[in-house]
């Protein structure tokens, strides 16, 4: 049933094309955008159900047999990521209806949004290194225009930093792919895994290549010390776009890291994965410390993206089944909680007119519901029970204790406390304290806008609670996916058939 593998790429593609064909008809674009978002989410769920039932799915595009053609392949990890992309796509598609101005809509906001989603799901589904590069470029181009769209001064400044560093990363990625090809003669991920594990490539050389990929993907993912572009650019575009970027783009970088460091480069785990763990610790700490110094909500949250990336990397560095389960559960949790926080801050801006904590205040008294919508994902992000973040962090910490990596466990716990501190800071400043300069009244949300803005946030906030109270299905799913990641032979078999 290869159609299920294709739909997560084809549906956003068609949505983008159709919205482009109705370039001047704003209303039609908005409707197609929502229909496309729903269809994408449903297609992603269909894929996950299929992979859950029948195991890893693969299709050879154009019927060129692997490893010569391009393979699309979905294991549980890929399918879960595609579902998250579908969820984020739908949520942001709806939120955009209430928050994106007409000027941006007139300049192709919706086609770009869906092109970006197509790039993201393509990156999750491809089983070919060069094809992964192509999907990264699709994402980069779409995200670059989305970031610059509107043409405000700070937007252009942010976009310039963003695109420069990302082009550098792409160039490095491409170079690494070239060297990898010259060494192994293949770019099919399953074939690469097979060749490197069977010792056809010198282990030292493989480690060098692994480090090159680490830097290339590390820039995309926002790892220490390569993250500086992220807080310099993520606060500039409209908040719907920031939420989408924070939910998906850095996570694609992490996905690529997890993929190559579980499937391909596992020849020298002592060295590579220990290094990953050290970077994870530094990423967590620098991210959270950077956040402490900020008073602009979007910048503050941007720094938290970085520190959360550290947790994901920590699980990858520990490299046990429990740890990888933690990575997957954490990934699901952080995508939901982080985007919810960004989207709430967008509503705060709409209501109170600012992103600056110094100018905000008193929202709890007038908008208790909004305060609750911030409170739930904020506590989830800090990792308090009974929210989704608690289980994610608990799994990672347990994995750390089992492998006796006490240092990284200690770091992760301290960072959690600091995260809680940051969230409390936003809470106290924006919602609790009295409003400085009482003269301006809060803007009420108008009714059509209300649904478009609040609906997605309510869904995300509810998910952080649901995934916290009923965490077991997610953890089961994560365990199964982690088992697949640790046993590459299943993946190789699905793509190449019987090779060994």
């Amino acid at each position, binding site marked *: 049933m*290869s*159609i299920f593998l*294709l739909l997560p790429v*084809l549906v956003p*593609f*068609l949505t983008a*094309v*159709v919205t*482009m*064909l109705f*370039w001047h008809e704003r209303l039609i674009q908005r409707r197609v955008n929502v229909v496309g978002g729903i269809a994408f989410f449903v297609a992603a769920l269909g894929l996950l159900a299929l992979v859950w039932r029948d195991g890893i799915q693969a*299709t*050879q*595009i*154009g*019927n060129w047999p692997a490893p010569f053609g391009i393979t699309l392949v979905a294991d549980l990890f890929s399918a879960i990521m595609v579902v998250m992309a579908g969820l984020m796509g739908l949520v942001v598609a709806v939120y955009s209806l209430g928050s994106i101005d007409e000027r941006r809509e007139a300049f192709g906001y919706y086609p770009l949004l869906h092109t970006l989603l197509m790039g993201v799901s393509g990156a999750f589904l491809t089983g070919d290194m060069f094809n992964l590069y192509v999907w990264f470029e699709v994402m980069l181009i779409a995200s670059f225009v989305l970031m610059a769209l509107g043409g405000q001064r700070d937007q252009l400044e942010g976009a310039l930093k963003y695109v420069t560093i990302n082009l550098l990363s792409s160039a490095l990625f491409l170079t690494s792919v070239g060297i990898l090809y010259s060494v192994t003669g293949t770019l099919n991920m399953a074939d690469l895994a097979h060749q490197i594990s069977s010792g056809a490539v010198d282990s030292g050389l493989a480690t060098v290549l692994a480090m090159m990929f680490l830097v290339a993907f590390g820039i995309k993912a926002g790892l220490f010390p390569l993250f500086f572009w992220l807080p310099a650019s993520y606060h500039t575009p409209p908040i719907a776009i920031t939420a989408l970027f924070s939910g998906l783009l850095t996570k694609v970088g992490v996905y690529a890291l997890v993929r190559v460091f579980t499937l391909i480069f596992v020849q020298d785990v002592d060295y590579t994965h220990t290094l990953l763990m050290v970077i994870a610790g530094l990423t967590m700490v620098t991210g959270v410390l950077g956040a402490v110094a900020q008073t602009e909500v979007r910048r503050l949250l941007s720094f938290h993206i970085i520190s959360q990336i550290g947790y994901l990397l920590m699980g990858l560095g520990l490299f046990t089944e429990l740890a990888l389960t933690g990575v997957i559960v954490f990934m699901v949790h952080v995508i939901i909680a982080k985007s919810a926080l960004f989207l709430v801050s967008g509503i705060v801006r709409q209501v109170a007119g600012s992103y600056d904590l110094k100018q905000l205040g008193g929202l709890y008294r007038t908008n208790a519901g909004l305060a609750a919508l911030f409170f739930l994902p904020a506590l989830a992000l800090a990792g308090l029970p009974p929210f989704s973040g608690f289980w994610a962090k608990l799994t990672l910490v347990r994995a750390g204790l089992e492998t006796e990596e006490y240092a990284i466990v200690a770091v992760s716990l301290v960072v959690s406390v600091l995260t809680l501190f940051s969230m409390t800071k936003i809470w106290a400043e924006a919602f609790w304290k009295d409003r400085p300069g009482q003269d301006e009244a809060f803007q009420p949300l108008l009714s059509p806008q209300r649904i478009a803005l609040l609906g997605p946030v309510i869904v995300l906030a509810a998910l952080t609670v649901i995934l916290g109270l009923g965490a077991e299905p997610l953890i089961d799913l994560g365990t199964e996916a982690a088992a697949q990641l640790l046993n590459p032979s299943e993946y190789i078999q699905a793509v190449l058939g019987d090779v060994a």
Partner: protein
Amino acid sequence: MDSVVLRTATRYLLPLLLLFSVFALLRGHNEPGGGFVGGLVAATAFALYAVGYGVAAARQLLQTSPRRLIGIGLLVAASSGLIGMAWGDPFLTARWDTREIPVVGKLGTPLLFDIGVYLVVIGVALTIIFALIEAEEEA
């Protein structure tokens, strides 16, 4: 630019260039050519017309907006990939008709894909070129 020489030459070159672009498109499967090059040649024909007669006249000659060409081209290319799936093959698997048609050669989904590329390239090139010439006309 107001030049009688250019205008007169354009009137003769335009059909020739368009014919040549179709020729390049059709021979492209096994020999140099293809949708991309063909599309560029066709775009130059309209670009030449836009320089000689103005963008408004060129748009009128094109009958449709370049942006619509991009969208239709993308749909055509994607549909060429879907056709093979009706026979249970993976996406983008080529289907060929076995009969040989004079001039065109064999018909098949790769040709459809190339036509999609052809339209997309015309659309993209003309979107850019028209915008640039219009900016100059306004200045």
